[in-house]
């Protein structure tokens, strides 16, 4: 009885919680002088990885190559601080979208999972209605838009609609949206789907500033808002058992340090500001491995499942064994001659030395025509 009650209790708590964590980390700037935007996003990548989100659940978008850029004096390395204590690129990194792949279209397709059938799993956001997602974006933006690679823009409306579609498709449980760009707070102003907490680095008509530059790298290495976010995450959130809340994180923002007014949006979250601020930092930056246990659980159904699974395995094994001889059977009937479709979609041989022959044929045809004309006019005359 006690066990049953405990199970019920666990199930009840699990129902309100998420069972997986995902992170979508997007830098939208190309070119070497935007080094800091890639460093921003890689810093977040290192942080969520440190707090337990595996590479398979992180979608990292890097529009340019900074680590192996010929201008980089530190090959294979990206730093977010002039002290160069931490190499963000490290030995183990998986970039899911890079270079020209980072476009508005691909980003929205990723969020809404409207992708082609050949899209590999590592490039998809395979979330469900029990997944908490951290969406972090950085780049150059303006009032209600964010530039992608200096070539196109995503607007606040596009982003709001993409999140709405995600909610309709049950693709997230709760979502934390962070953005570090100029006039960042305008980007989340159009959101209208529930369970989203949003924060940005700067208010309307306000710039977001870089923190400092490294003289040997030659450019600024990190932005202020991200720097102080990381400062909090590195110094306060030491491990995955941290009980610090988003309220603690948001309270650590300081205009004197960031030089712009960070904004927050709680009204979409159930329970609004109170509940949103009480969410744990680890709910978005860390990883959980909760399992939902079905309360109507009985012995016989479980055994039946096992038997059915065994049958499936058996069938698959049989099929596998059966296909091999059949395959080779089909193939053995084929004669090892030239394939019939050869030549339809291939380069064909050009005879360059035929030039003179072709000209002779042309001349002969011309003179033949002239002769016919002459003969006809002679008969006519």
């Amino acid at each position, binding site marked *: 009885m006690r066990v049953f009650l405990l199970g019920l209790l666990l199930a009840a708590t699990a129902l309100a919680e998420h069972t997986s964590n995902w992170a979508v980390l997007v830098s939208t700037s190309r070119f070497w002088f935007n080094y800091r935007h890639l460093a921003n996003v890689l810093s977040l990548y290192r942080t969520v990885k440190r707090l337990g989100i595996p590479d398979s659940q992180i979608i990292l978008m890097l529009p340019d190559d900074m680590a192996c850029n010929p201008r980089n004096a530190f090959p294979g390395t990206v730093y977010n601080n002039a002290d160069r204590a931490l190499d963000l690129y490290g030995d183990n990194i998986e970039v899911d979208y890079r*270079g020209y792949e980072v476009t508005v279209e691909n980003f929205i397709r990723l969020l809404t999972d409207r992708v082609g059938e050949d899209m590999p799993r590592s490039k998809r956001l395979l979330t469900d209605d029990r997944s908490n997602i951290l969406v972090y974006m950085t780049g150059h933006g303006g009032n209600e838009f964010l530039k992608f690679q200096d070539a196109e823009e995503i607007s606040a409306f596009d982003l709001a609609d993409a999140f709405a579609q995600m909610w309709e498709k049950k693709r997230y449980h709760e979502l934390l949206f962070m953005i570090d760009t100029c006039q960042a707070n305008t980007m989340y102003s159009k959101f209208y789907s529930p369970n989203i907490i949003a924060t940005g680095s700067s208010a309307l008509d306000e710039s977001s500033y870089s923190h400092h530059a490294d003289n040997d790298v030659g450019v600024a290495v990190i932005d202020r808002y991200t720097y102080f976010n990381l400062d909090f995450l590195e110094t306060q959130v030491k491990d995955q058992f941290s009980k610090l809340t988003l309220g603690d994180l948001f309270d650590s923002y300081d205009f004197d340090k960031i030089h712009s007014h960070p904004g927050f949006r709680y009204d979409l979250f159930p329970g609004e500001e109170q509940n949103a601020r009480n969410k744990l930092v680890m709910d978005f930056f860390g990883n959980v491995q909760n399992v939902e246990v079905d309360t109507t659980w009985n012995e016989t159904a479980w055994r039946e499942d096992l038997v059915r699974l065994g049958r499936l395995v058996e069938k698959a094994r049989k099929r596998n064994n059966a296909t091999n001889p059949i395959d080779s059977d089909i193939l053995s009937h084929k004669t090892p001659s030239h394939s019939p479709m050869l030549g339809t979609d291939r380069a064909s041989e050009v005879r360059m030395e035929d030039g003179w022959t072709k000209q002779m044929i042309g001349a002969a045809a011309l003179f033949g025509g002239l002769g016919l004309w002459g003969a006809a006019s002679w008969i006519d005359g």
Partner: protein
Amino acid sequence: MIFRIFLSLLLLLPLACCSDYHEKLLLRPLPGNALLASFNFRSNATANSFDEQNFRYFPRSFGQILQHAHTKELHLRFSVGRWDAETWGARPWNGAREGGTGVELWAWVEAKSDEEANSRWLTLTNALSGLFCASLNFIDSTRTIRPMKTFEPEGLHPKSMLPNLQLLHGVLPHEVVCTENLTPFVKLLPCKGKAGISSLLDGHKLFDASWQVMSIDVRPICHGDDESNCILEIEQTVDMVLDRERSKRPRDNPIPRPLPMDQIECDVSKPYHAEDSCYPLEKSSEPAWDLAEIFGRHIKGDCPITGDDSMTVCVNTQPERIINVFTNPEDQDFGMKKIPEENLTCFEPPSNGTDFSLSFPEQNMTTPLPLASPRIHAFRSITGYGQERGGIQAIIQNPSSTEPLDVIYLESLPWYMKPYLHTLRSQLSPPSTIQPIKETYYRPALDRRRGTHLELKLHIPPGSSLTLTYDIEKAILRYTEYPPDANRGFDVAPAAIRVLPGPNDAVDEDTRRRGIYVRTTSLLLPLPTPDFSMPYNVIILTSTVMALGFGGIFNILVRRFVAADEVPENKLPLALTALVARFRGRIRQVITKAMGNREKTE
């Protein structure tokens, strides 16, 4: 119980006998203080175990992709940099484990029709793009060709399979190669960079190299026509040329700074030699170097599953070169073997994760290390000027003074670079009456659908150099087709050149199957690019013209003009006078009325 263990051992035996793993590292100091490090990892699986998805050393993630895409043989290359053949001599593996700058992929896909092959190729490139974190999904129909003569299957396929195999080839010359490509590459290895020679693979050094290639080759080896006898072999290689001087710089301070004067050997015979001026002398001795210093880490023991040949680290130097072995903890047992006729010294690193390294002191050598000379030299460049037309010039040299050279020259050009085939000219120097172009295979480009495929069979007499030229036209792209960095130019894939085996080539079966290849450098084609802020300017200008022009004309059309003296001076007094006049009129009316009444009464 013992019986069961025995039984399971017995079951394992046939598996163990046919799937094995080999690794080898070859180090060769090159002139100019360079060092060639050539890593080779090879393992295999029987066709049966592969079909049943029993993966042992063959990487599962990769194997499943091959099965899903029905790929029977695959070659994948990630390359950066240029091999300096003039200084470094012949290429490792005769160029057979090289690709063009960026990413190059070619594979034999089993398919019954071209459409099926295309769709499987698409599946393959997409899956590989996910596995290797590279934009391989950009290999679409415009970058895919079906080479005729350049590539031949390296594996021994069952004869019944051959008619159904289709070769597809794609290149991405613009693709950058970086740590995110090395990470999955190392994960495919059985020891995963934790032990054995793969523990030396570090992105920070690999991507600092003057030239580097990562390659993956999968090929079946079937003896006879029986498919059950097949094994599937996967070979991974990493070749790199490191600058020894640059690699020794500390990682957090790699900016080159001049040495202190007392550490430089000066030429004192120079007239300006003084305390503060020095002409540095080139060192005649072989400089000292240390494996751990150059790679920034030690070899972490041997990979315990390595097969019979456990002499995994080989150094290609003169036999008299002094080699010091370092192990940590000290005095561990390691194997060593000298092969003087090949100038090789091989080592077997100690087991159990012991740190292992080699160091070479500074030494005066009497004989230089012989370097094999390359079979062929090739250069390619863009000629001409202007935004509309240009030309391509390729120079292929045969350095041999006795042997003629038969080569296949392959170009896969993007659709926006349109060659004129009738302008193709070949010229031999010294001049000769021989027609060097023997065969031509050509498939013209279609806008936005496919690229040009040009393949030539060439004959180059001994000691000659062949110059190929043709004209090209540059296409104008649509506004949205330009990449974000269009002004940088568009990368054109390198030409691949295969040297056909001559009658006097005495090479073993394996080398012959691999072939001899060389690739030119990639080209940067400048296309006419619009001023991308132009649409914005046009909008701004149009709006201004509309506002000024239309606004002005509209204003003129609807306004009524009156002469200046007709205009009352001020509106407020006007209204006031009108009011006064009205008031006065009213009064006058009242007065006249009153007068009239008076008249009546009077």
